[in-house]
């Protein structure tokens, strides 16, 4: 496979995954805030600020936000590079350049997705389309993952796409944890809704589509430590950081099956990062969540850079 095309497919995977997380974040936060337990977490400004923080455009406490503007910006704005629209556009551009390698079924699904997002009417979106739009985006990304798994050869091309998907998934889950962690801190103070058992943990789990399974696993209302443990360390939770690292490890071994000791390889780095979290207590992480977030984001970006120089160098 051409190095350039491999790079494009890697990013196709990343953009598909990214658009899903942004869409779900928008949906869950907006709708759960409507009947949130306290005045602070019900506040529009609070929710909008949280959304902007998540997509990497944080604004200060003193800025007054317009709901329509923020929703449009994150959903459909052609001029905002992190908007869902632009993510989908990038996914399709990358798919386009590798059209000969991916299946017709996958390409058609991406193309349909692109036209759906591109043609979504601004007025309809702002008036009553937020739910419809975000749910559809999330569903279409599911379809795409199904097509990736179900119609492509499970070879190095597949491994590269799934490396992209999983690195992006881990990154987005961290960003979501980071955002909701901030929200839980900020929403403290009103009647009994302390940080540890904040309503925001439930929202966080829903953002990661992991609420029901978390309840099944712990059989208790989510609190900070169980939520973090589930989303970071539980390898059986398909959205956890641990699970993503395991997947990345599995796929890098397809690209680089050598067993020789080579500390400069991507596979070595992935193994190292994975081993670190495989044997960690959540209590260690909980002592300094901010530090953990910085470190893991750093490691993920190191892995991505390493991949670039090892496989995508053209």
């Amino acid at each position, binding site marked *: 496979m*051409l*190095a*350039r*095309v491999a790079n494009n497919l890697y990013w196709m995977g990343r953009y598909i995954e990214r658009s899903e997380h942004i869409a779900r974040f928008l949906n869950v936060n907006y709708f759960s805030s409507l009947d949130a337990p306290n005045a602070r977490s019900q506040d529009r400004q609070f929710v909008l600020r949280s959304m902007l923080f998540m997509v990497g455009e944080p604004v200060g406490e003193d800025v007054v936000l317009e709901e329509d503007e923020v929703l449009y910006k994150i959903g459909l704005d052609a001029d905002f590079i992190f908007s869902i629209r632009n993510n989908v556009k990038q996914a399709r551009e990358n798919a386009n*350049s590798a*059209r*000969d390698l991916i299946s017709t079924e996958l390409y058609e699904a991406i193309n*349909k997705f692109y036209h759906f997002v591109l043609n979504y009417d601004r007025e309809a979106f702002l008036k009553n389309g937020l739910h419809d739009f975000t749910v559809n985006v999330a569903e279409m990304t599911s379809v795409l993952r199904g097509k990736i798994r179900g119609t492509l050869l499970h070879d190095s091309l597949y491994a590269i796409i799934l490396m992209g998907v999983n690195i992006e998934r881990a990154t987005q889950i961290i960003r979501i944890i980071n955002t909701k962690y901030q929200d839980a801190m900020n929403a403290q103070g009103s009647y009994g809704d302390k940080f540890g058992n904040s309503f925001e943990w439930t929202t966080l789990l829903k953002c990661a589509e992991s609420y029901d399974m978390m309840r099944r696993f712990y059989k208790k209302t989510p609190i900070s430590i169980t939520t973090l443990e589930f989303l970071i360390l539980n390898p059986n939770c398909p959205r956890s950081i641990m699970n993503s690292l395991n997947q990345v490890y599995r796929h890098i071994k397809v690209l680089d099956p050598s067993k020789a000791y080579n500390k400069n390889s991507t596979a070595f780095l992935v193994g190292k990062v994975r081993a670190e979290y495989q044997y960690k207590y959540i209590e260690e992480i909980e002592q300094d969540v901010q530090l953990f977030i910085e470190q893991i984001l750093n490691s993920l970006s190191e892995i991505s850079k390493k991949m670039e120089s090892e496989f*995508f160098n053209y």
Partner: protein
Amino acid sequence: MFSSYQLNHDLYDEIFEDHGKIKEVYKKLFDIYGEHSIRDYVNLNEKAKSSFFNQGITFQVYDKEKTHEKIFPFDLFPRIIDPKEWKIIEKGSVQRSKALNLFLWDIYHDKNIIKQGIIPMELISSSANYLDQMNGIDPAGGIYNHISGTDIIKHNDGKYYVLEDNIRCPSGVSYVICNRTALKRALFGVFNHYKACSVTNYAENLLDLLETVKPNGVDIPNVVVITPGMYNSAFYEHSYLAKTMGVELVEGRDLFVENDFVYMKTIRGPEKVDIIYRRVDDAYLDPLEFNPNSTLGVPGLFAAYKKGNVTLANAPGTGVADDKAVYTYMPEIIKYYLGEEPILNNVHTYHCSRPNELKYVLDHIQDLVIKPVDEAGGYGISIGNRLGKDEISLVKKQLQANPRKYVAQPIMSLSVHPTYIDKSESFEQRHVDLRTFTVLGKDKEFVLKGGLTRVALQKGNLIVNSSQGGGSKDTWVLKK
């Protein structure tokens, strides 16, 4: 559905005979279509359009601010060619391709055809597409024009004429296949009544024939398709061909040349490339040899080609032979190299470079089509009976200023075919042509049984090119 169909008896209609009777081969189809109401048809037409759109079979149109994606208009009423007529078209296409190939070999080697005075030296020496660099090079298997697209029309005398040979990078074959897919999706029932030859075998035959012209010393050749990139209007076709042949689709920047061998940059390092089906024009192939500003090409590619280490299909420099001035000598070229009479007719052509013919052209502009010899895509064509007084004098001035640049032909009346017209929601007569696709390999050839029927969607328009608002039809060659 055809109640409002207006039959103009001056035109040759592909499905109706002179007195309005339907031709035998179209009868069943006509009955089946007749069972649908025009409403059904409007719906099917919309469905077919969205099928193309979702498949991403589109081209980009640029206007002031935005780029738009458009589909190449597709008509749901297929064209049928009966086996007897097809046999002539197929044989004729192969004959022309072979003759052109021998002609290319000759003019890049001994130039016997010129020495014997059959065609004039100026024809070659004044051609912008003649590449001196190709002199004396022996392409693998002796093949220059591996892929040829032959544009054929039916005149109102009911005979087929070739309007043009395309042997640089002829495009359109992917539409042949997409049109079939779209028609099957929309009106699958009709295929129970007709046995049309399959068109999906193009890619495997192309790969098969390309592999016959592998460089010496290569066992299993590594084939790639090179494209100018995803913003090229034919990118869909490039990716389609690479996908169906199961080979890599590369851009110039994916390749490099070392010690006169060509390599592509893969995730596991360099991999040697042996055969390149190139969809990049001559001028952009290699900045060291041709246009130095090209970023689409591969520095050193031509040197590797010259050494015989890589095959280029089509060979560089083929453009000299699909020149519209060379076209006029096709009957002589066929006779000279093959010792055969041309199977397909050539349209009589006046060379403006010859003073007496130029005079005739200037006196009869109203009855002629004036064409620049070296333009593609239907650009620069003037149709005499459509010109106003001022335009005629402008054309005359251009002809006198640069006679070598132009040829003239009688206005051919392309046959017409019932075509669904969106605006009026009815069937109307529209002019059609046919592009066949011929592949030459070493001692082997293949003609796609079908071809691209292009249709001029503007009423009365004779130019069918997609760049001029043309659409296309599925084309059935019936099995015997």
